């Protein structure tokens, strides 16, 4: 290969000369899954009130919006981009649904309009990032304020609460005979779609390639701009869907719904092993991370730990996981190459 693609090439070589089982066992994702299982076991056996079906129901209802939005966010962050406007889009979708229902539209129509708003909002992000060429961090900080401003502007300080009971009941209903709420069904459908997209299509391979090296990806024939545009639209529409769920679950459309949700999503995606520099990450790690944070918060609330302390604990976990990953990567590169050539070491660490 030629000089510009050195980084990508070295990484591929580096990962493939380990056996599969070692890659899995030592991976960041596995660590999160193990931690999730450990936290679940410890909580179930020591925390009073945790060991009951209600816990699972409440937990999944609480994390459902994060789970949903984490799917497109994972792909976006693997390309090395970010979308900070998702929480505001949840709010805007919620308000859109509310305003239309208040104006007399059937709920289905209002929900479709909210999804359309999601597509448009995502397309605005995508347009500014790919066509205009602005950094996604700056663009989505802007649309974070813009979407939230529209949401609050449309409803002011009032709330719409007149949603059809059959819909609000559906948002909280459990699958017959289980403690699992129905919202998990659309989530699993989306999970399968996103997993297939990421792992079994040229589009998905393009996503990783863009994150490793945008220029190399472009030279290899990946439609860099088109891929990113599609991902931002997906983030918009999935956020809008999460907004409809959010509205129904709480039976209340408010301009300030889901304020700060984007940070919870991004924290989970990073904890789940997605590199903020792009090129690295797996959906299962992210899902395990969302469930880990949810389970931990649920257990800590049950032992009357205050919200501030819960934030401190999840924040520390996030920082430790990032440090741990860097240290692990460093140790592996040292151990596996006793006499590294300077160029390889430099590019592997980059």
């Amino acid at each position, binding site marked *: 290969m030629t000089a510009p693609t050195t980084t990508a090439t070295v990484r591929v070589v580096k990962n493939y000369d380990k056996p599969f089982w070692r890659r899995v066992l030592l991976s960041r994702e596995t660590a999160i899954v193990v931690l999730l299982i450990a936290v679940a076991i410890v909580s179930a056996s020591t925390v009073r009130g945790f060991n009951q079906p209600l816990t699972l129901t409440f937990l999944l209802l609480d994390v459902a919006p994060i789970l949903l939005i984490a799917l497109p966010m994972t792909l976006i962050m693997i390309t090395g981009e970010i979308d900070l406007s998702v929480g505001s889009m949840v709010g805007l979708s919620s308000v859109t649904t509310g305003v239309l229902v208040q104006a007399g539209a059937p709920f289905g129509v209002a929900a479709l309009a909210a999804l359309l708003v999601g597509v448009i909002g995502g397309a605005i992000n995508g347009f500014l990032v790919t066509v205009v060429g602005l950094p996604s961090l700056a663009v989505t900080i802007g649309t974070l304020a813009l979407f939230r401003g529209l949401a609050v502007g449309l409803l002011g300080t009032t709330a719409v*609460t007149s949603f059809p009971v059959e819909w609000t009941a559906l948002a909280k209903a459990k699958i017959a005979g289980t403690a699992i709420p129905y919202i998990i069904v659309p989530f699993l459908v989306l999970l399968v779609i996103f997993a297939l997209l990421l792992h079994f299509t040229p589009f998905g391979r393009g996503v990783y390639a863009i994150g490793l090296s945008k220029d190399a990806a472009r030279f290899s024939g990946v439609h860099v701009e088109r891929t990113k545009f599609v991902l931002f639209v997906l983030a918009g529409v999935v956020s809008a869907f999460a907004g409809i769920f959010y509205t129904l679950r709480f039976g209340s459309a408010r301009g300030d719904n889901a304020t700060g949700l984007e940070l919870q999503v991004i924290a989970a995606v990073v904890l789940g092993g997605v590199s903020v520099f792009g090129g690295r990450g797996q959906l299962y790690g992210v899902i395990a991370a969302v469930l880990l944070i949810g389970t931990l918060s649920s257990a800590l609330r049950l032992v009357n730990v205050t919200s501030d302390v819960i934030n401190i604990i999840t924040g520390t976990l996030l920082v430790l996981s990032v440090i741990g990953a860097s240290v692990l990567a460093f140790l592996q590169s040292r151990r596996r190459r006793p006499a590294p050539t300077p160029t390889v070491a430099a590019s592997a660490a980059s």
Partner: protein
Amino acid sequence: MTFAPKRVLALAAVAVTAALALTACADTGSSSPTSGSSGGSGNLSITFLPKNLGNPYFDTSAKGGQAAVAEFGGTFNQVGPAQASPDGQVSYINTATQQGVGALVVSANDPKAICDSLNQARSAGVKVVTFDSDTETSCRDIFVNQATSDGIAKVQVDLIAKQIGDSGEIAILSAAANATNQNAWIDKMKALLASDHPNIKLVDVVYGNDDDQTSFDKTAALLQAHPNLKGIISPTTVGIAAAARYLSTSAYKGKVALTGLGTPNQMRAYIKDGTVTSFALWNPEDLGYLAAYAAEALIKGEITGKQGDTFTAGKLGKFTVGADGTVLLGDPFVFDASNIDNFNF
């Protein structure tokens, strides 16, 4: 590429299933967590859920609640979200349901959004008392109301009448022009002035939009436009503090009376320097105290929340449940130089 798609996907599926199944399996094995609380008779563990934590107003109400719970020998706990959001409260309501607490004492961030979780808690045997901010009546057993519109209007008219000698021009500095509460109070104040204080003339109502700077400017304009003004009523905590700040450094200090609804921490300096003689609000400590006793009475089955039920709330005495399951704390509390240092909110 850097991964083996099929195996990774399979692992992902296994991991998620395992994680879910693990929690789900854990579910079926255990006994009911609400043991001891069902029936709602003896479980005196009472959880306060304010709009948010770290809010001096709710710290004060929690102090009252804690004192009451200590008196009747229950367990007091206060939890809450860091930001005043309904979804944050729902998580804590759900947690209380899982814990099987005896009663939940809530100040609602949204009258509707937390309804379903409150009702889920109630069907699990948790008694629900709202205080400060009510939910819809179908979602709680009792609402402990801090003050009625009539009481709030009357105390402000009485205070201004006393301070200006029951005659002369007054004006009102309100919040937003369409603020529901303030407009209801202003209408009642106008009626009271007309019927009981014929010599007091309300010359103007201005709106500071609950914005500090706007309220400050409106106060200045008001005093310029009405040179004979003897008093100002500001039925909003933002307005009264801004008006007091203007008066305290102006020539009108001590000449134009100011009263209304304020909080002790905002108003302390102006009480001490003589700008303001007295103002009103309810006492959040008593509010928390009463809410805790209402929770106790519900848990013990002494009351059910229907109109006419009576219970005794320690040092505050006997209370009767009114229409819509509402218990009224009483007349607003008047703060002046003699008592303001007893409060921190």
